[in-house]
């Protein structure tokens, strides 16, 4: 037993876990950004955000089966459909309760989440479906004991590329700077002539588009999708956003990678008998992080608004 445990933490093994953690972290980061952008502007914890990931995955499946589009077009199409769904959800469910106390908007988002999951179960059937990606994405590389496929590379490259693009957007464009301004002080932003509805819609479009990418990547990695697939990654991405400092976009990215790495390394280093409690460790980790730094890694102390 002891000997086996020792072998499990060899350098190659650690490196392999690092790769897995970065890949998982990329997915958490993509989803966490949507949570944090919407929270930053509306102080809304949108529990339906994980289900948008599912909408994205099913949209991709539908597009691939019906139109036989190339993979990149399927991905882009699923981002578009998820973005439209996000905007629709905001108009129909969140705008009527805008300005209501945080617990009201949070319960509204739970209701939307349950609605989307049940709708998915009814319309799409609760049975998981096969989710096929092109063969070239499943080519496995083996580098000195480290194994990963093209899908893993794509996940990391896409996540990093999209986050760089988002960084350029929020620092270089009027709309992006207005988004940061709104997230800091909604009232002052309005006094600049910024149309808040436009900012909110933009946040839902970007957040939902990124969630769709995460959905397609998760589907590609597991080879199957189901109507409840958004729940657990959604919850963990929320944890990542909180760890990073909710409301802070860079924080959400950092939180995503920290959580992905922590989860994979914890599970990898723990005795196999405990690895079934994977999700429990994620939440213990959250509690520990919040005890050490209640505002999150990159969060600022003044979270109140004027």
């Amino acid at each position, binding site marked *: 037993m002891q000997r086996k445990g020792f072998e499990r933490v060899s350098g190659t093994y650690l490196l392999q876990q690092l790769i897995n953690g970065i890949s998982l972290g990329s997915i958490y980061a993509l989803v966490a950004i949507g949570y944090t952008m919407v929270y930053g502007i509306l102080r809304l914890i949108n529990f339906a955000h994980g289900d948008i990931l599912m909408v994205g995955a099913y949209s991709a499946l539908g597009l691939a089966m019906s139109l036989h589009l190339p993979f990149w077009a399927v991905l882009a199409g699923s981002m578009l459909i998820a973005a439209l769904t996000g905007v629709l959800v905001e108009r129909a469910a969140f705008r009527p309760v805008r300005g209501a106390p945080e617990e009201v908007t949070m319960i509204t988002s739970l209701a939307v989440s349950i609605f989307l999951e049940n709708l998915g179960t009814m319309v799409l059937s609760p049975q998981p479906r096969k989710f096929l990606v092109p063969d070239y994405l499943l080519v496995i590389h083996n580098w000195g004991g480290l194994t990963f496929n093209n899908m893993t590379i794509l996940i990391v490259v896409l996540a990093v590329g999209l986050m760089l693009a988002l960084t350029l957007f929020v620092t270089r464009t*009027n709309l992006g*700077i*207005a988004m*940061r*301004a709104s997230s*800091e*002080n909604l*009232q*002052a*932003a*309005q*006094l*600049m*002539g*910024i*149309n*808040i509805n436009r900012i909110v819609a933009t946040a839902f479009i970007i957040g939902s588009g990124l969630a769709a990418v995460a959905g397609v990547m998760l589907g590609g990695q597991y080879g199957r999708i189901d109507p409840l697939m958004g729940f657990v990654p959604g919850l963990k991405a929320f944890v990542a956003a909180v760890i990073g400092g909710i409301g802070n976009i860079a924080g959400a990215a950092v939180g995503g990678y920290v959580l992905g790495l922590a989860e994979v390394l914890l599970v990898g280093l723990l005795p196999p008998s405990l690895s079934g409690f994977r999700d429990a460790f994620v939440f213990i980790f959250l509690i520990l992080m919040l005890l050490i730094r209640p505002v999150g890694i990159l969060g*600022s102390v003044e979270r109140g608004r*004027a």
Partner: protein
Amino acid sequence: MCELSIHESGERQVTSEPLLVLEHVDAGYGNIQALDDVSLHVKQGELVALLGANGAGKTTALRVISGLMRPRKGRVSFQGRDIARAGVHEIVQMGIAHCPEGRQIFARLTVKENLRMGAYLRRDPEGVARDLEWIFEHFPVLRDRLSQSAGTLSGGEQQMLAIGRALMSKPTLLLLDEPSLGLAPIIVDRIFKVIAQLKEQGKTIFLVEQNAFKALEIADRAYVLESGRIRMKGRAQELMANEDIKHAYLGG
């Protein structure tokens, strides 16, 4: 001296046209009535002050004008148009800039980004560049701090940024809410000097102040608000000489 584009003519001219009119306005929060039958007006080119103690309803009046709050009763019109139901961003578009109480600059944005947000609705880059020059000339410290995050500025510098940011929208009417609040006298003097210069160049300004003396020094006219009601109004010099005002607000 650079050309001034902050305002149109460079020549101060008070017309008889009222630019902003409030008629019998009531406004409040829950069962607190903050404004009670308030009527006032500001003419083109005027500097009008709204004075009153803490809690009198001055900030509420500005919030009603800029659309942050809906009046319960009464009319608010700007350039003859009813704006009581317009959205905040539409009112900015019409030409009203509200420099809010407590400055409310975007602390995590840079000074440059704050000023850029002030010009959010503008589509004339040359005009924006000229106004930016004007602001740097009058508040040189902002040029030195351009790429610093605004939260690192001192209180006085933040107030200068807040005024500069409001001017960046090239407003027809500038609303200022207690620009002297919490600042050292020497900084207050600097800021009031710039407000007086804006007035001389023809900018229409509605100035809310608790510091009645400073405000009356530069204002054309003033209203005095007490518990949500207009108690007094008149030309600034007359109010300055008024015994009641001296007693209540000028420490005399």
